[in-house]
């Protein structure tokens, strides 16, 4: 039996969400209409508001509804330090580690020549301007441990050079609490290449 056009339409709409296949979309559709019509109304309102008002912080490109996000406007955070990440989810992950009190810059991607993603697509013009303003003393490159993440980190490090900004790249390798025999060979090989001297 096929469902009515409006139900099908809703299911199709839900499938734009990550991890939602036909089965989950059908479950969500029935749930909203059968048990939680009020929840559905709230969802519509939240989506409408977010779509209308959420943009990018003009300093760090983090998603937010103000012109300057709450991290960039927080006077307790170290303005001389910027951690550069690929996505808003990475900001949340680093915040959760509670080891960092500086600011961020969110690239919203990485350089990828084969996908046609170049420097202007990841905010390099804005970052260049911030370097030129001269109040940044240190950057931490926290792009992903992929070849594209490495290339992006190098590009930014090169861009920072003339400004004498201290530049570091976060360490990558063997996960904590894991046993070596369970670590995949690619990750282990990377960890060996990037090994450090014991002090």
């Amino acid at each position, binding site marked *: 039996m096929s469902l009515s056009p409006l139900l099908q339409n809703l299911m199709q709409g839900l499938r734009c969400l*990550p*991890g939602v296949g036909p089965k989950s979309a059908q479950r969500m559709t029935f749930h909203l209409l059968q048990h939680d019509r009020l929840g559905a109304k709230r969802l519509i309102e939240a989506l409408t508001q977010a779509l209308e008002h959420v943009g990018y912080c003009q300093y760090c490109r983090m998603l937010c509804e103000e012109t300057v996000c709450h991290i960039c406007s927080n006077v307790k955070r170290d303005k001389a330090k910027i951690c550069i990440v690929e996505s808003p989810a990475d900001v949340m992950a680093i915040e959760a580690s509670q080891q960092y009190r500086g600011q961020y810059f969110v690239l919203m991607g990485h*350089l990828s*020549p*084969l*996908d*046609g993603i*170049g*420097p202007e697509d990841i905010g390099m013009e804005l970052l260049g301007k911030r370097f030129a303003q001269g109040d940044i003393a240190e950057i931490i490159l926290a792009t992903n441990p*992929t*070849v594209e993440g*490495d*290339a992006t980190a*190098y*590009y*930014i490090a*090169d*861009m920072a050079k003339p400004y004498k900004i201290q530049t570091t790249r976060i360490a990558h390798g063997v996960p904590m609490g894991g046993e070596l025999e369970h670590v*995949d*060979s*690619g*990750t*282990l*090989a*990377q960890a*060996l*290449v990037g090994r450090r001297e014991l002090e």
Partner: protein
Amino acid sequence: MKPRVELEPAYVLHTRHYRETSLLLDCFTRDHGKISLIAKGARRLKSPQKGLLRPFLPLLISYVGRSELKTLTSCELSGSLLNLSGERLACAFYINELLSRLLHPHMAFPEMFLFYGEVLSITATEDNYTQALRLFEKNLLQVLGYELMLQQDKHGEPIQKDKEYLFFPEQGAIEMTSAIIANGSIIVSGETLLALANDNLKEAKHNFQAKIILQAALRRLLGHKPIQSKFLLHTPMEV
């Protein structure tokens, strides 16, 4: 039974995310040329393939499938990891971009596959790696059927070491005489043409002129879209 390929030597050219946990891969394989694969669940935290399915690693891959898109069944490392960074990494991306854009799927070039591995390793380790890059460009043009005429000029006369030539990728070299207006054409020494013919670009001036010839020839095949890998460098490369 689905067609099955076991332990095929391969390199990943490019990866894209697919759904929540999978990857789509373009691979350059020794015996099957360029192929597309799906690696199901490869982005899961505990996937054994997680750290392996990335460009510039020598792999042995096994896969099944009849359609254009094969399904990866296993993959293992078959050599040492290259330490590519900075300009060297950008050059490695450039090589992959050439292969991704110019190779037709399923056309195998086993010799070029071996040469590709060598060039990557030279790019990672040797000082004079741009020479290897030039020879790879030359080799690629050759296997694609666009071999450059380097030993003879357009009229079939042997190239002479101490003469200057105008070089046209389609036609070859024409001796420079005072009657020819060289506006916008590539001017190259006979010495460089012969050096490139002999795969010997140790001298910087030969390397530099060879780059101009080879990249002009490649541009014809690449069409209007410029090479994207050059945007990986904030400071353009000298060589």
